[in-house]
């Protein structure tokens, strides 16, 4: 066991007023050793970021450190004067944040921004600075660094910006790099790049990384040791092998069970009922007791103590102390054969043919159109009643625009969308307004999709009112109550405001609102990506159950492959405005044919330790849809590209009844 680099003892950070403090960090102990990757895992609102900010002493003004110590080597971070703390920050401890877009100053070149850090921490001579900056950019894998130093943040893509942030953090040659959700805002292929970069840099420099994340997949990819944080406390610490093979704490076990995936198809996901408790209360017992299935009487009135298991491993749970064998080891679910997808040859409910949505680029005083952003450029697909079509792709590929184009929220430029016998693109005015009740949409961010000024009851009733469902107030409010109970909320929710609900509950309200007008098709635009894993499971279960009960069809827009594997019947993979591969979920996920699908699937971090897969690393970023590459859009990044790819966009190849792929290699 090497000596710990960082040792945190009984750290307590409180936020807010004196009378009613939020105990964001409430007695955290942890150790990070030299050169290891330590993952801090937990749902949002558990105090992960607050722990990191306390370590850097970057707390918001309302925050204060009540107790505890943070030792970096032999330095007591919490007792340092602010002047010397400045050299520690960004010096021995570097930090990168979740959102690279807001972490860089848009009016300075990236060279200047890296140089600033170099000047402060490396103490370099002026003439050397430029070459150090270029070396740093080279180290983080930015091509052509001599040119890039003079560029501004807006000229770089998200992945590039995160690399620049890493370069800035590296300038101080940190012994510990704190990465606060470094890949959450990035796409899977970019995420794979950044994670590999962090791993490589760690091997070169021997720094320790503290990785804060909520993503079990990312943890299993890179972490050496894992601490699970819940409601301001660490509840379990384990090595990666231990954690993934045999999680001890009921909460950790539940987290694994609530992950969607192929193995769980056709059965409801395990859910952790309720939400993380508010942190401004005095806890009498275990903080997880209210949501725990293995709860005992003592859990409610006795606070569990930290107990060590073996070397640097521990748990905070009464179950462990009592040496009770968990009631049932439900961790490894029986892998059920995925249910046969009945291929009904029925006529599709929605049939989209060659749909195009182009946004004009206008310039000059007279607003002449100088080009088009081809957000959606010829998309065709069918959705049958009661089925789910998943539309998969990275951000910016036009998935959401397809959804909105079908719903006529954005009028398509060309193509047709036939819904239940009606040509939607030609519907206008009153006819379109009437038709709207059959198609609904659920958005990614449940908070932004509800008017904060309206009562939940009015929000749900809005659609009914517009579509004249229910004759009077009385009837409508009865129906609102029905809907609320259908999505698992209590009836009194109707009299409250959206902000009084948690993220998962808000998304339930959004589902209820969509159901209010009795739709046949619901476009789900990443409905779970803003939610925590445990809450995601609740929503997915709800959607699945509603589909079974009401024979709904879903167009499920997502970037999360595990959700696709769990929920979808068919999959369409989208790249730069076009569908590159389409087929049933088994066909696409089991044997992807298009190189992009292969890369996308391989880049998804998986929890399962057994399946050692070869990650296909894609270089670079997705090109701009305003100026797509000639020929196959994917060829500049394609590992299997041949010169012919540049000639023309490949024809669609029909591989089976249900399957089409657009790749030159298959034709």
């Amino acid at each position: 066991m090497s000596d710990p680099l960082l040792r945190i003892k009984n750290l307590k950070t409180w936020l807010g007023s004196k009378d009613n403090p939020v105990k964001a960090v409430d007695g955290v102990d942890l150790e990070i050793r030299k050169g290891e990757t330590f993952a801090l895992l937990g749902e949002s609102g558990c105090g992960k970021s607050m722990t990191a900010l306390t370590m850097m002493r970057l707390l918001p003004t309302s925050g204060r450190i009540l107790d505890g110590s943070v030792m970096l080597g032999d330095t007591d971070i919490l007792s340092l004067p602010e002047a010397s703390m400045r050299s520690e920050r960004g010096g021995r401890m570097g930090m990168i944040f979740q959102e690279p877009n807001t972490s860089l100053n848009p009016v300075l070149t990236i060279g200047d921004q890296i140089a600033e850090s170099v000047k402060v921490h490396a103490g370099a001579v002026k003439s050397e600075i430029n070459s150090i900056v270029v070396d740093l950019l080279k180290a983080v894998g930015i091509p052509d660094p001599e040119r890039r130093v003079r560029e501004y943040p807006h000229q770089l893509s998200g992945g590039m910006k995160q690399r620049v942030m890493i370069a800035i953090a590296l300038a101080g040659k940190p012994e510990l790099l704190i990465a606060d959700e470094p890949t959450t805002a990035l796409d899977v292929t970019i995420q794979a790049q950044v994670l590999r970069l962090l791993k490589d840099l760690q091997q070169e420099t021997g720094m320790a990384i503290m990785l804060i994340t909520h993503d079990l997949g990312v943890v299993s990819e890179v972490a050496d040791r894992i601490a699970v944080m819940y409601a301001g406390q660490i509840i379990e610490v384990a090595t990666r092998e231990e954690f993934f093979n045999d999680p001890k704490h009921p909460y950790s076990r539940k987290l694994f069970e609530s992950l969607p995936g192929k193995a769980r198809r056709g059965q409801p996901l395990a859910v952790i009922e309720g939400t993380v408790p508010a942190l401004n209360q005095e806890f009498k017992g275990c903080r997880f007791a209210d949501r725990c299935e293995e709860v005992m009487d003592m859990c409610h009135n006795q606070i569990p103590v930290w107990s060590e298991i073996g070397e640097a491993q521990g748990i905070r749970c009464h179950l462990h102390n009592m040496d009770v064998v968990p009631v049932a080891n439900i961790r490894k679910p029986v892998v059920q054969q995925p249910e046969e997808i009945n291929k009904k040859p029925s006529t599709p409910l929605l049939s989209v043919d060659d749909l195009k949505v182009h946004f004009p680029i206008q310039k000059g005083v007279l607003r002449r159109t100088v080009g088009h952003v081809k957000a959606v450029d010829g998309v065709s697909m069918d959705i049958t009643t009661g089925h789910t079509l998943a539309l998969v792709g990275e951000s910016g590929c036009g998935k959401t625009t397809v959804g909105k184009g079908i719903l006529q929220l954005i009028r398509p430029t060309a193509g047709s969308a036939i819904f239940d016998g009606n040509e939607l693109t030609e519907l206008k005015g009153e006819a379109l307004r009437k038709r709207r009740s059959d198609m609904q949409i659920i958005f990614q961010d449940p908070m932004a999709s509800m008017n904060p000024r309206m009562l939940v009851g009015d929000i749900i009733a809005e659609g009914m009112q517009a579509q004249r469902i229910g004759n009077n107030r009385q009837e409508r409010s009865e129906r609102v109550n029905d809907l609320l109970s259908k999505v698992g909320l209590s009836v009194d929710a109707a009299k409250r405001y959206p902000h009084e609900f948690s993220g998962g509950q808000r998304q339930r309200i959004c589902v209820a609102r969509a159901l209010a007008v009795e739709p046949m098709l619901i476009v789900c635009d990443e409905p779970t990506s803003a939610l925590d894993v445990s809450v995601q499971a609740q929503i997915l279960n709800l959607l699945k159950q509603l589909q079974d009960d009401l024979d709904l069809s879903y167009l499920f827009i997502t970037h999360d492959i595990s959700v696709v594997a769990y929920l979808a019947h068919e999959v369409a993979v989208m790249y730069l405005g076009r569908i590159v591969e389409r087929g049933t979920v088994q066909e696409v996920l089991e044997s992807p044919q298009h190189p992009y699908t292969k890369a996308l699937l391989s880049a998804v971090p998986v929890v399962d330790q057994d399946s050692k897969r070869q990650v296909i690393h894609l270089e670079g970023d997705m090109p701009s849809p305003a100026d797509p590459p000639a020929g196959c859009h994917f060829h500049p990044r394609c590992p299997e590209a041949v010169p012919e790819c540049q000639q023309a966009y490949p024809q669609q190849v029909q591989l089976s009844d249900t399957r089409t792929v657009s790749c030159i290699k298959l034709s």
Partner: protein
Amino acid sequence: MPQFVVLWTDALIFLLLFMAVGFGLYAARKEHLRDPWRSVVESKVGVGTMVVLLFYVTIGLLDSIHYHPTLAEEEQSNGVTHASEVISLFDQMVTPLRVRQEKTYSAPLATHQYAKETIELPDGTQIRDFPRLLHGGAHLQRPEQEWLPDILRSVAIGTIKGGLLTLVVINILIMFSSIGTECGYGGQAKRMLLGQTAIPWRVVLLTLGVLLVLLTVSAELSLKYHLLGTDKVGEDVFYQALKSIRTGLMIGTLTTLVMLPAAILLGIMAGFFRGWVDDIIQYLYTTLNSIPGVLLIAAAILMLQIYMSNHADQFNSLLERADMRLLFLCIILGVTSWTGLCRLLRGESIKLREVDYVQAATAFGVGNFQIILRHILPNVLHIVLITVVLDFSGLVLAEAVLSYVNIGVDPTMNSWGNMINSARLEMAREPIVWWSLMAALMFMFTLVLSANLFSDVVRDAFDPRLRSSSR
């Protein structure tokens, strides 16, 4: 029974009052509106300035109820029972101030005129000296000796009266607020005075006390003297300054009333519909904005003046003429000032129309008008409120500037701008007459300062960005 006269501005100001009360009742039911107001009344600066503003508003409203007073029995002749002049309720209340005119300038609290005059003594000889005032200190036999003790006595009596009045008011307030609380009168009084209540009642009571004492002291003094002196024609300056409150308030509030419909309607339409609607509205306000405001105001006021002199028969009294000019000033100020708010609202609406809940409403087939009314308007209301409160003080100051360059309110109308304007000559005089200017500045300064402080509190409470950072 007096014969009421409703001037245009009177009607509008009461309309505005009713709208404010209506909005208050509406806001009381909506949590998202009630919450920021709660934080306004829980701030010390907020309630302190609110009390000051309330004083001004009360005077302004009292001054906005106009009527022909009933003539006394002996003055009535052949059926004429009402005087031809129009006075306000406020005029009636301060009648002594209104009717006790001197001949010309006199300094504050003076007993003698400010300028020497040839006085004919009882024995027939003539001397040049400062003559005694007709009303100011007229009760004193030997002003040289009696003046100072008399002033001090009046101040003392005023302070005692004010103190007593304050005690009465405080007790009434405590009694009202203790209703419904279980701690009863004593407990409530203790909590209020120790500053333990959520609303800082201590500050309210303190401000109220200071204002009431000031009120009684000045009342006591102005019964015997001219508290702030008299102007060139011997009118009481204190009375003028008080009368100017109405003018200032009118300009500050009615302008808003004029500008709000245009700004809200056009701003939201431009932002929500985009396309050619947006183009037209944008061109409209950029064009309007590039015409110098003063020029526009001058042109409008001059045109109105010509119209009024050509159609003199349409106006029954000087007061009505002055009132029409005030209304026009408000309208033209409104026309020049809606662009700022309009631009803000357009930007916010552009943002809001892309928000998911507006998209969701569109997906439900909700009509455009409904979407604007239900989703956009309530979500821009905080901007409107902040702008209105912030603009108020600016408009009061603008009136002073415009009157100074003679394109403001009618010269016969009492306004701080007119007082400052006339002070231009008084300052050039030797010895200088400073009290007119000082009185105007003092009153205006108090109003604008409290309005500014109040608007700061309101903005802090309503601005979502400031709120999220403070919590």
